[in-house]
């Protein structure tokens, strides 16, 4: 049966180095929960702690409230899908999928029934008696998934399962994983560094950075209301501009252009805040707005992406260049390189971060 997972004050150390200082998170029964972060953020380490492949130096991990810290990996009743699939190369597809069932002392009939069932769920019936080396990457991925879920584990763990596939297959497989996970309703912890994949597949996402969780939320929450500057730039693109506090809900940009953000409350002691505006949330205005110069133009079919430069010290340094994306479905004319343009942000969508980058005032309103 599927379970909920509670991680409480988890600590991970390698020798003397603490890589996860204090991590707590609750994963609901049946949801697809994604750990998303750049490489080195310890998302895989945390996954392997749940699996039992790496030790827990502090805190506890519970399944349905019961601690699993002292249960060895083989007894945790988990299904795991590895980045490189880890299909046993000396066994046929059927033998691979049977492997876990055979250890559970089921009858031959029951084993065959369940294997046949899962083969049809993941759509690889015709390869049942082939050796793994004869299979393509996508097919091997399906075998790995089938092998992990056929034992009806309490939890399904997936460690960057799509990173070895080409772009097209990746999109196809993430759809397949999502629908299979929904059908059998198993609690799934999914690790990836690919934000688009995370947004597409997850019920909820935990964005991680150097061993800590930055934000937990649904894909929409995380994209529209990131909890801090790191999340806003790691998930999608955000143009970061400095702005002066001109009132509790009013900002003034370097040029003197002011906006009101209804409902927001910027504390008095914050003189300079950071406004995060996504490229699609800018619009061209006539005469009134933040001035910018068009630097490059990239035609991408559905839309045109412009690299733009705001004059003065307005944009936050050491960030990727600012961008404006123009939806071709509604654009009147294209901009040219060197054009002077005034931009207005969409005040309903804009996020305002504290000067230390850690608080989103749009979230605490």
């Amino acid at each position, binding site marked *: 049966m599927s379970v909920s997972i509670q991680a409480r004050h988890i600590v991970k150390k390698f020798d003397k180095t603490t890589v996860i200082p204090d991590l707590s998170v609750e994963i609901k029964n049946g949801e697809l929960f994604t750990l998303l972060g750049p490489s080195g953020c310890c998302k895989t380490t945390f996954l392997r702690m749940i699996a039992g492949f790496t030790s827990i130096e502090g805190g506890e991990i519970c399944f349905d409230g019961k601690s699993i810290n002292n249960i060895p990996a083989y007894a945790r009743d988990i299904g*795991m899908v590895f980045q490189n699939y880890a299909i046993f190369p000396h066994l046929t597809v059927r033998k691979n999928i049977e492997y876990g069932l055979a250890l559970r002392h089921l009858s031959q009939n029951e084993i065959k029934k369940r294997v046949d069932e899962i083969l049809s769920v993941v759509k690889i019936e015709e390869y049942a008696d082939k050796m793994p080396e004869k299979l393509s990457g996508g097919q091997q991925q399906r075998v790995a998934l089938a092998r992990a879920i056929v034992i009806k584990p309490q939890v399904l763990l997936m460690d960057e399962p799509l990173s070895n596939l080409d772009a097209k297959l990746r999109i196809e497989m993430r759809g397949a994983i999502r629908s299979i996970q929904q059908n059998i309703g198993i609690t799934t912890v999914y690790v990836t560094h690919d934000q688009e994949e995370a947004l597409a597949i997850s019920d909820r996402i935990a964005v991680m950075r150097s061993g800590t969780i930055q934000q937990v939320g649904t894909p929409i929450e995380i994209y529209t209301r990131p909890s801090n500057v790191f999340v806003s730039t790691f998930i999608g693109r955000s143009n970061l501009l400095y702005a002066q506090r001109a009132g509790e809900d009013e900002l003034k940009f370097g040029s003197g252009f002011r906006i009101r953000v209804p409902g927001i409350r910027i504390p008095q002691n914050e003189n300079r805040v950071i406004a995060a505006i996504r490229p699609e949330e800018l619009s061209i205005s006539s005469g009134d707005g933040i001035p910018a110069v068009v630097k490059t133009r990239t035609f991408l079919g559905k839309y045109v992406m412009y690299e733009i430069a705001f004059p003065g010290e307005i944009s936050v340094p050491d960030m990727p260049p600012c961008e404006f994306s123009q939806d071709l479905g509604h654009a009147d004319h294209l901009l040219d390189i060197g054009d002077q343009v005034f931009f207005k942000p969409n005040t309903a969508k804009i996020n305002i971060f504290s000067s230390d980058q850690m608080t989103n005032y749009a979230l605490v309103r």
Partner: protein
Amino acid sequence: MKGFRPDIWKLITVIILILFIFFLVYPMFSMLIKGFQDPATGEWTLKHYQKFFNKRYYYRALINSFKVTFSVTILAILVGVPIAYFMSKYQIKGRRFLEIVIIISMMSPAFIGAYSWILLLGRNGVVTRFMSEHIGINTPSIYGFGGILLVFTLKLYPFIYMYVSGALKKFDVSLEEAAESLGCHGPRKLFGIVLPLITPSIFAGALMVFMNSLADFGTPQLIGEGFVTMPVLVYSEFVSEMGGEAHFAAAMADIMIFITAVMFTLQKSYINRKSYTMSSLRPIQKGELHGIRSLLVHGFIYLVVLLSIIPQLTVIYTSFLNTNGSIFLPGYSLVSYRKIFSTLGTAIRNTYLYGAAAILLILVLGVLIAYISVRRRNVLTGIIDTITMMPYIIPGSVLGITLLLSFNKKPVILSGTAFIIIISLVIRRLPYTLRSSSAILYQIDPNLEEASISLGCRPMRTFFRITLIMMLPGVMSGAILSWITVINELSSSVILYSGKTRTMSVAIYTEVVRGNYGTAAALSTVLIVSTIISLVIFFSISGKEGDHSIEL
């Protein structure tokens, strides 16, 4: 897992470490120390070394050994590199046959080579007599430096060949093309691009040649006569010192280990500084040879290869001759075989019995050590790794003396037993199996084990069901090399054997010394045939044609 599971692998690590310390490290160090001790008082002294370097009789052996090892190493490179180069670069007729013959001559014991060159070119040799009786030419003496050089070069050039062809197999032809596109061609390309890139491999092979020719006891003992080298001197001093504490022999063994250790370290540090990883996207295409060049290349390769297989052919042929002592009589029969099975049956039985016991231990140790040092690295496995290097620098006869001195008194008396021979075989030949087991383990994805564990399989069961099964091809090909060298082992066994624990190699040696050439030939034939059968199995395991990846 911390805290809740007493890890079986830690226990295995500790047990292996204890075994190594007891049977290898402790004997080694007690012998190293013995070389610096006064036999009577036990005080520290350098007098053994003074004695050694003051008497020409002694230090001459060291000079002789250097003469032999350096000459052989250079000759083996001069013979081995061109053969490897030609075989990789051109289509050579009978390539498969040549490759197999080269490996057979590498794997056959050198002392059989020495013995059969005596049969051919010795004082009573077939060729010698033929030349003087029918042509009136006195062939130069085979005994001494020249003979040793001949035997060693023909037996050891295959090491160079193996390493260099291995490197050339990985050579990417686009490197050569890049050189040509920059206007570099001909000898300049060969010496400027190709040779530097294979130099590390030449050095690796050269070290093997050096070590083997320095440590070999049988060849100089049989064919050297007055030309005494270090292993021969150590052996004879040890045998004459028997009963005493053998301090002088220990001191000479120390000198040998010092030399091998220095060479080993030099080579390792060279390899560490200068090794190139080449991935052959486009391997060398073998070109065709025509006319006089083809003739010369083929002639050279066939001459060397056939010369190197002559000892085996001679031995097999003479084993079917009628003999009386060292005199061959006309007519063919199986007399020699009847004789060995009736009088030397135990030697044959012992060889296979001890070999089987040793190989069993080698298999278990090789797999376990490979596993702990690849998958469970810690301080202890690091120490074990270092200890497993020791056999590379300990000559066989030195190891024999070491073990004998350590286990010939209470509380542990093993001298004269089969056990001590088996131990020496295991120590000496474990590296082959260990190396190939580790090599294959590095290629096995650790996630496979985790996948099995996550599916509910206990770690130990996972090891047997997944890891071990996948390791098997590598383990087996290493084990066969261990096996071949185990059954052919002479230099340590000749020191450790007693009347009851004689092996075939030892029996061949004693029979040759006694002048019983017929029985020696018959025994050698049994050994050669065993070796060839084992090699055939090796090739069928290690697979495809031309892919004889021997991990040396």
